[in-house]
């Protein structure tokens, strides 16, 4: 009997070692590109040519970072990513706040003030999560031109709000469905109106889903490339487009360290959000995945 349990324990130990080994190995795989990006950005070009991907920088310095931020060429101009970084900030912030706010109100109506046809409406909106955006690019380009907001911050905010609404509405609707009916019903009997109930009862309960929505939208809008490259040009472009231009600018020597520093700069805001509020980020991902 004792012998049996001991072989069983050995078997289990071997099994667990394999499981942990695999998991750690996979960790290295996921971390490797980040490691390579960071170390490459700290090396000099000579060192990059002489060494290999995984070697540690001999003489770490931030020269490449400085260049990526303020003097690298992104096409014809050579002013680094700084301006584009602030471009992104200037349209991401309003777009995220507006789509979240509208999504919250939509979700509130779709759960607490349902009317005939509201479910159908929700279904129509949800299809917006599925379409490949290529199918709206040409008409949107003409519309933005006609409205005089092509290649402007306003235009990008507009586009991101319009196509972000489906997701934010979905988040809030699925969250509000779980709030007990009685709460709102009682308030209605007491004569509280639409906005009063929203402000006094619903909003105070919404903190977690607001965080989820803001993080999701922030990541989506910051990382967007398609709308940025189609609806903006020159020095109005978002950072993702500028990064792509920087990497593909073919004049002169290829500076891999500057490319990597630039990539990290473009990734920092969303990475920061992920590190600080990863829990909510994951929740947004899965909420977005489980289509209502």
């Amino acid at each position, binding site marked *: 009997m004792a012998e049996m349990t001991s072989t069983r324990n050995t078997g289990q130990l071997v099994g667990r070692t394999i499981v942990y080994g695999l998991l750690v190995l996979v960790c290295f795989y996921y971390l490797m590109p980040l490691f390579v990006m960071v170390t490459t950005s700290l090396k000099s070009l000579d060192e990059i040519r002489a060494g290999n*991907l995984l070697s540690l920088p001999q003489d770490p310095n931030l020269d490449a970072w400085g260049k990526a931020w303020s003097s690298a060429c992104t096409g014809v101009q050579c002013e680094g990513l700084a301006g584009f970084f602030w471009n992104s900030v200037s349209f991401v912030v309003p777009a995220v706040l507006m789509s979240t706010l509208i999504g919250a109100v939509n979700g509130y109506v779709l759960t607490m003030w*349902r009317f005939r046809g509201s479910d159908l409406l929700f279904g129509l909106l949800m299809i917006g999560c599925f*379409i490949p955006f290529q199918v709206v690019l040409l008409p949107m380009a003409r519309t933005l031109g006609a409205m005089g907001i092509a290649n402007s911050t306003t235009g990008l905010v507009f586009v991101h709000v319009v196509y972000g609404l489906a997701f934010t509405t979905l988040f809030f609707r699925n969250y509000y469905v779980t709030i007990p009916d009685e709460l709102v019903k009682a308030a209605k009997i007491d004569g509280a109106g639409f906005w009063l109930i929203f402000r006094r009862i619903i909003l105070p309960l919404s903190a977690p889903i607001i965080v989820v929505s803001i993080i999701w939208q922030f990541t989506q809008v910051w990382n967007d490339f398609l709308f940025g490259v189609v609806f903006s040009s020159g020095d109005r472009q978002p950072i993702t487009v500028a*990064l792509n231009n920087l990497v593909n600018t073919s004049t002169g020597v290829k500076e891999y360290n500057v490319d990597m520093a630039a990539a*990290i700069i473009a990734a920092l805001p969303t990475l920061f959000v*992920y590190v600080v509020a990863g829990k909510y980020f994951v929740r947004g991902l899965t909420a977005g995945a489980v289509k209502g």
Partner: protein
Amino acid sequence: MDLTAQRMTAAPESGAGTEAKPRLGDRIDAWLPKIVLAPTFVCALVFIYGYILWTAVLSLTPSRMLPKYEFAGLAQFEALFANERWWLALKNLALFGGTFVLVCLAVGLLLAILLDQKIRGEGLIRSIYLYPMALSFIVTGTAWKWILNPELGIERLLHDGGFENARFDWLIDPEMAIYTVVVAAVWQSSGFVMALFLAGLRGIDDSIIKAAQVDGASMPTIYRRIIIPSLRPVFFSSFMILTHIAVKSFDLVMALTNGGPGFSSDVPATFMYSFAFTRNQIGLGAASAMMMLMIVVAVIVPFMYSELRRPRHG
């Protein structure tokens, strides 16, 4: 999923509890929910459905640099399917999409099962698997472009590791370039699929597994016969999301290969962009966009239909 199962019992038609003489304020109150929802509704109608229609109309015109609203029949679609580059893009989408979806599902499921073995430090490991999802595809593309660099990247690493003649130049190999996109896309998205599967695994009722164990079923059998089949809804949503990512994939290809070498790693999304916005062939671009929409519909609708017809468990 269970959220949607909960239905609101009563659907209040309007501001209830105001039975006294209706005043103007009350009537506005009664209409308020509809008024509030109206802008979103109009947006969806115009900017989703209206624009799809508009693109469809454009695809039936001879438009080039500017829209020209004359009926040209299916000429643009004929031109599209006579275009070798479009066929190449379709073939690449099939290769990339197929491999990407399958590998992501397999890796995601495997990692989720491994992580579900009461692992110490699970939270940390999970965050490591998932962080690529927070990055832009442009960042991912830039990073992998460097890692896969035919001279200084992995190939150099292999040489330094003693494999003097090793070659790893997929990025400049027209046959293999599309698979670099798979490598990078899997790196970015597989952690997400893992998270979905893990959530599914955590939702399985423990008592079924315990009962099977009491009956003497081995762990592999339990996984094969009970656990994995019960993850069907997760397979369903992951499949939809991954297909969607695959058809839409544009940024990653632009950043990693820019469709090259030549057009060898073109996909429909890059094809559409190139014809609609840089080559001034609006009609052809619109036709390719419509085809992309139809691909999404063709893949997702039958799948959704067969899935929704199945009786729901739990």
